[in-house]
């Protein structure tokens, strides 16, 4: 069974640009979570999508946004990039609510570098 996949692996942008990161969940999973992990720091919760809707977001500015598609894949968009947005962005997925443990399974991440 394929795990969570993310693309691209690495992304280099300059300040002020926009970045789009993509995530494909494990087959059968309907929830997608996004986390930011800055270098040497822990994981900060960004967004949670389930069944196409944003269920909640962490303490990040509105320039961090995303969406979930009908096939449950997801995009994270970061507008007006700032240097401190440089981080590893992790996507996780979990099964439908009520069907077993809502354990989050993580992808390998996208390394975003803002110059």
């Amino acid at each position, binding site marked *: 069974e394929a795990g*969570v996949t993310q693309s691209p692996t690495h992304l280099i942008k300059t300040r002020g640009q926009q970045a789009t990161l993509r995530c494909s969940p494990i087959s059968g999973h309907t929830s997608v*979570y996004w*986390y930011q992990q800055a270098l040497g720091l*822990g*994981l*900060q*919760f960004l967004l*949670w999508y389930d069944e196409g809707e944003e*269920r*909640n977001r*962490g303490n990040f500015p509105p320039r961090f946004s995303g969406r979930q598609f009908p096939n449950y894949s997801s995009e994270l968009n970061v507008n007006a990039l700032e240097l401190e947005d440089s981080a*590893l962005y*992790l996507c*996780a997925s979990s099964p439908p*609510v*009520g069907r077993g*443990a*809502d*354990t*989050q*399974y*993580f*992808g*390998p*991440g996208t*390394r975003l570098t803002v110059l």
Partner: protein
Amino acid sequence: LAKTTQPISMDSYEGQEVNITCSHNNIATNDYITWYQQFPSQGPRFIIQGYKTKVTNEVASLFIPADRKSSTLSLPRVSLSDTAVYYCLVGPRGYTTSGTYKYIFGTGTRLKVLA
């Protein structure tokens, strides 16, 4: 929101049992505790999940006291390949009427296993 704290680092020797504790004083009734292992530049890997008392699987045990304000991940007979950062995650399973679905990762414990 359940704020979590963990020791920053621990050293151990091969073959020893390692116990890593996570404090989550404000854990909510519907929150579960999940532990992850993370290697550099990789996504976290699920280890174990529990709600109360003791849970055991093929790689670890999780001890949660009755008040649930802390949890302890126990790794039996660690090896060099267990050198990694270990995170606890506190968050709800399923939907709750409160509408708050924040997922709070601990600060992470850097475990170094020595030969």
